[in-house]
């Protein structure tokens, strides 16, 4: 017998979710005999018309208010298999119920009323489905009877909502025009009301979806849930979140990198198989004495999870009070339970339009979704949600109040190398670049930005620095502001002084990179020969040198002219200005080129990160 398919019904309030569920329950004969008759009699006694929605609203308060107030789970069976229906309320204030219901679903049905079309909650729910990792989506365009069963209206809603889903990174399995009130295309499709629709009914489409399987093929993640001392043995109990664990496997426990071999796999009443796969709640004993406790995550040595004090995540917030920058919360990720502080909030999504603005915010309000950077008190063990979902999501709580959830995704974290010896930081040998890198979790490098004034070097340098910093990496920007006034204060703007200026920049950058920092230099540095000198100096010291050509046509830079320098140069007030009366020599073979007149700064930074982060990883 295969597991039930859990399907969540979401959508804007009054678009007919409860009616649709009631109709399915009645038509699949999933209710006890007499239930429908009883409801019909109760309605008649109160002078009400019977509605299919009443089937679900079992609690008296709901019938009186005529709204669904909490997540409801109910089972039904088609000819194909067993289902669990999760009804998630559409009211905005019940977002927490929608999340509770939808988080465990295999598939979702988004109900959109044909007369009203997609509304705010239709879009918000769509976006939350993406966040919760639900990929199997069916859109039920309900109340087609109120739109005169019009194909044109259906196609219009289909086109608009499909475009929206694409934007948030989803695709629907099917759009189905139906009427829950009348019964068209719910469990049967006779084509009488909508002869133009050739597809199968909602129920037949559901029968084609798949139950989410436990990810046995992913890397092993075995979070320790508890330790039981029995007789003289210590049993480490937990649920295998992903991968497979076998007797004899060498495990590494994060954080702290303790290693030990699996001696036995424990079950009751018998021990059972010599391995356990994703989804299994088991216990293990170890062949070596190591200190392991709840919150530690076991993995194989070759494929360990990431570990950092800082994470970036897309967070949805359900708390009544806003999430505050510099506020402290409890972060729970599998069995880890750590204190964290909010470092920053940005890219908050506008609930009505679903546009996100990349401005810094001081808070994330109730029902908002945004990018949040968190600093944890002790190292957090995690994966990107895209690679190992269960280790890439967490909840935020204040005391015992669960207030929000987060998905760690999109970010590229430097891979962590298991530390072979626990004494590595204490031995007496020389401190090498490798050892600095091992301690920092990444290598140092010089990222050399070059380009015309106004091409966007400063903007990119600042944004890049922030991205690296948020990944808990050591980074620093060198620019005219912090070098001209101190180290280079004796230099003017003669050709000789300019060359010397760049030489000093190159030397300082090399030293800082050798010390383990990712140095970003932001200078016009117009001459190939000067840049070549900086490159050679870095390479001689074994430091990675990444030349980034920040490219924009002179006309564009002159148009931008944020500091008014081009105007002065054209007026002859500024002599030897690069691009006007001094040459700029573009790099011949730079590591990275970004075209700032064709892409937004964030895109340029993303492009640089993609190339740069792999270069910073440990060997």
């Amino acid at each position, binding site marked *: *017998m*295969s*597991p*039930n398919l859990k399907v969540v019904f979401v959508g804007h309030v009054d678009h007919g979710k409860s009616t649709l569920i009631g109709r399915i329950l009645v038509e699949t*004969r999933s*209710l*006890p*005999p007499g239930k429908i008759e009883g409801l019909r009699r109760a309605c008649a006694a109160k002078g009400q018309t019977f509605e299919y929605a009443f089937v679900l609203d*079992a*609690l*008296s*308060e709901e019938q009186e208010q005529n709204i669904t*107030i*909490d*997540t*409801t*789970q*109910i*089972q039904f069976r088609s000819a194909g298999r067993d289902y*669990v229906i999760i009804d998630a309320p559409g009211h905005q204030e019940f977002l*927490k*119920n929608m*999340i*509770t219901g939808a*988080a465990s679903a295999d598939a979702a049905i988004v109900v959109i009323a044909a007369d009203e079309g997609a509304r705010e909650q239709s879009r918000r729910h769509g976006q939350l489905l993406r966040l919760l990792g639900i990929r199997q989506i069916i859109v039920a365009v309900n109340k087609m009877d109120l739109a005169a069963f019009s194909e044109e209206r259906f196609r219009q809603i289909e086109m608009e909502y499909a475009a929206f889903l694409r934007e948030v990174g989803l695709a629907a399995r099917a759009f189905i025009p139906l009427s829950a009130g009348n019964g068209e295309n719910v469990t049967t499709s006779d084509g009488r009301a909508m002869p133009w629709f050739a597809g199968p009914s909602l129920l037949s489409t559901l029968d084609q979806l798949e139950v989410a*399987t*436990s*990810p*046995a*093929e992913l890397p092993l993640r075995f979070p320790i*849930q*508890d330790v*039981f001392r*029995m007789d003289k043995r210590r*049993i480490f*109990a937990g*649920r295998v979140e992903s991968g*497979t664990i076998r007797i004899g496997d060498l495990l590494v426990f994060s954080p702290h990198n303790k290693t030990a071999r699996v001696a036995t796999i*424990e*079950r*009751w*009443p018998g021990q059972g*198989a010599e*391995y356990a*796969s*994703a*989804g*299994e*709640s088991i*216990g293990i004993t170890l062949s070596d004495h190591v200190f392991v406790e709840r919150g530690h995550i076991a993995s194989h040595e070759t494929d360990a999870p990431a570990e950092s004090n800082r994470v970036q995540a897309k967070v949805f917030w359900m708390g009544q009070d806003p999430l505050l920058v510099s506020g402290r919360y409890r972060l*729970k990720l*599998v069995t880890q339970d750590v204190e964290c502080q909010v470092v920053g909030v940005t890219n908050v999504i506008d609930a009505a339009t679903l546009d996100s603005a990349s401005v810094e915010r001081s808070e994330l309000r109730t029902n908002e979704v945004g990018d949040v950077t968190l600093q944890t008190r002790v190292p957090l063990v995690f994966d990107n949600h895209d690679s190992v979902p269960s280790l890439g*999501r*967490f*909840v935020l709580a204040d*005391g*015992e*109040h*669960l207030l929000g*959830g987060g998905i760690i995704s999109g970010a590229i974290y430097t891979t962590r190398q298991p530390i072979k010896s626990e004494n590595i930081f204490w031995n007496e040998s020389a401190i090498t670049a490798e050892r600095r890198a091992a301690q920092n979790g990444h290598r140092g490098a010089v990222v050399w930005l070059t380009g015309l004034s106004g091409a966007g070097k400063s903007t990119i340098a600042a944004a890049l620095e922030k991205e690296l910093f948020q990944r808990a990496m050591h980074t620093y920007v060198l620019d005219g502001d912090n070098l001209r006034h101190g180290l280079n204060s004796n230099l003017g703007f003669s050709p000789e002084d300019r060359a010397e200026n760049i030489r000093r920049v190159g030397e300082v950058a090399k030293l800082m990179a050798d010390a383990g920092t990712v140095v970003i230099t932001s200078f016009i540095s117009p001459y190939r020969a000067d840049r070549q000198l900086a490159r050679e100096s870095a390479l001689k010291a074994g430091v990675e040198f990444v030349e980034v050509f920040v490219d924009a046509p002179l006309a564009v830079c002159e148009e931008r002219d944020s500091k008014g320098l081009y105007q002065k140069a054209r007026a002859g007030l500024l002599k030897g200005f690069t691009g006007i009366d001094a040459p700029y020599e573009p790099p011949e073979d730079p590591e990275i080129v970004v075209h700032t007149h064709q892409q937004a700064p964030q895109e340029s930074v993303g492009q640089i990160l993609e190339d740069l982060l792999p270069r910073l990883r440990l060997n």
Partner: protein
Amino acid sequence: MIGNSSHLDALENHSVFILREANHAFKNMAMPWSMGKDSNVLLWLALKAFFGQIPFPLLHIDTTYEFPEMLEFRDWAVAQYGIRLIVKINTEARAGGIGYETHDPVTVTHELKTVALKQALAEHGWDALITGIRRDEDATRAKERYFSPRNADSEWNYKNQPPQFWGQFVTGNAPGEHVRVQPLLDWTEVDIWRYIQREKIPIPNLYFAREGKRFRSLGCHPITHPVVSNAATVEEIIAELEGTRTSERAGRAQDHHEPYAMQKLRAKGFM
């Protein structure tokens, strides 16, 4: 079987996960045990979760209207599994003359089960109770969550329940409050029977047909009625259930005494 666990495996693994989370979160916890089929499945899952040594006591609320077969089974199981058992009777109510002979079933059930449970909670100061309720038993249980906080009067605020997702639960409680932990929420009646069959879990004989009748659900003997059935083995019961659409609790009188009876009982602390 890698990556392709069965429906029962998935239910079992999730229930064990919940039991372990509860045991870690609550230091003073008990598990009510009625010796009924669901209760015995819960006991079996607890034995699995804790490798045969359950770290908390079981609680039997003895209404004094128990079937003798159930008490016999209780004593056998206590010895068999090495269970720490606490038995609680609302002696005040019985001494005050409350009983099925003189009172309606809702009143008696409330006094001998719900009030007795509250008395035991007060005596032992438990911060959590593990219960064997299932969503499919009753419409109001469809809205239950795995961890469900109850106030000092054991009341359930079903209109404002905490969110619960990704295996993260509300695990704390204010003084006087307790949390109901409900590991069997996702199981159906037929799941319970299939699991009893697969694991060969011992259950009382009353569930099996004798002279054309058997008990489908067990409560106090004056208000629990057998159903017509010839199912004398677990296999026959499963076959019978697959062909029926009658509600499991149809033979339990307190559910049908008045409209919304179950909702009212449960809001006041009934399990």
